């Protein structure tokens, strides 16, 4: 029974109690209400046992540690290099295998023009100019995108559905999302986010964890590079504004 989660334990407990309650109540005592309660327990036990199999065995604390370590390493790298430009989230078609964040090392104010897939290297060149280089890194969004059952289409409805499925169903970090599209700007509102947003240097460059996931999914959906223009916490909502780079 090693590795069983609380859902499985609760399921087994309810299964045993349900059988012990409903059978004597029905056949010996002839009590309908007690039999009904026993059946309720049996139904709940089936549900809990089926959910127990679907939940990963890794405790959330371990996941938190892995996430924090990964973010710390990227933050150290970015701070040491003194990068101030905002990351560009590339779809898998421009980042070789999966959506990644590209941070140009030099910027003249305009977004770099990336037309072909960048090589899978930390330091990647996107143009012929000596200054046309940047860092190509994986973010939480790169991994989160692989959790989607299918690639969303380039419209706000499919993006909203994909993000809600990811945040609410898979990751459990928010209660829902809403997406609004204005020309090449996408505004995403995340309801009741449960991931904290810090205001350090790397967050200014890459965006917060939720914004990173949103930008990666949107880049994959539109199949175009995307940047995070703005993000802020407003009460129980987290607003993110993205720009699709044409």
């Amino acid at each position, binding site marked *: 029974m090693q590795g069983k989660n609380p*859902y499985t334990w609760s399921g087994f407990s309810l299964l045993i109690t349900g059988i012990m309650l409903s059978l004597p109540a*029905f056949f010996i005592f002839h009590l*309908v*209400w007690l*039999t*009904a*309660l026993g*059946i*309720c327990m049996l*139904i*709940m036990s*089936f*549900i*809990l046992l*089926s*959910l127990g*199999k*679907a*939940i990963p065995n890794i405790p*959330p604390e371990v996941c938190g540690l892995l996430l924090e370590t990964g973010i710390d390493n990227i933050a150290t790298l970015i701070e040491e290099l003194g990068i101030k430009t905002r990351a560009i989230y590339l779809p898998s078609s421009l980042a070789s295998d999966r959506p990644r964040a590209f941070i140009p090392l030099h910027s003249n104010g305009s977004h770099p023009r990336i037309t072909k897939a960048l090589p899978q290297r930390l330091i990647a060149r996107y143009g012929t100019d000596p200054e046309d280089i940047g860092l190509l890194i994986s973010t939480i969004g790169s991994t989160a995108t692989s959790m989607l*059952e299918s690639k969303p289409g380039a419209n706000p409805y499919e993006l909203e559905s994909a993000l*809600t*499925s990811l945040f*609410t*169903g*898979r990751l*459990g970090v928010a209660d829902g999302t809403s997406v609004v599209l204005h020309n090449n700007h996408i505004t995403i509102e995340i309801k009741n986010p*449960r991931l904290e947003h810090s205001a350090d240097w790397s967050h200014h460059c890459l965006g917060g964890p939720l914004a990173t996931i949103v930008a990666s999914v949107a880049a994959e959906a539109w199949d175009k590079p995307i940047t995070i223009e703005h993000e802020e916490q407003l009460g129980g909502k987290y607003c993110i504004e993205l720009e699709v780079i044409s």
Partner: protein
Amino acid sequence: MRIYNNYILTVAALLLITTIILIATEQNSMDVFYSVYVIEALIVTELYVYFNKKSRRGLNLVGTVLFGGFVVVLCFQVFKAFI
């Protein structure tokens, strides 16, 4: 995990409230109790559309088993009505 907890609490609360209501209305048929429970559990499961594929597969199996029981109850009632 939060969505799973919400789902479990919703189903449990709904089943308990149904039990109280049916007992208060002096319902004595186990068939009615079981049928209402199964219908409620299936509806709530369908409403939670954002479960992942693995959870959905497990819950579909539970739904099939519960629906099988419901069909058996229905067959017994039809059989009784004709005899």
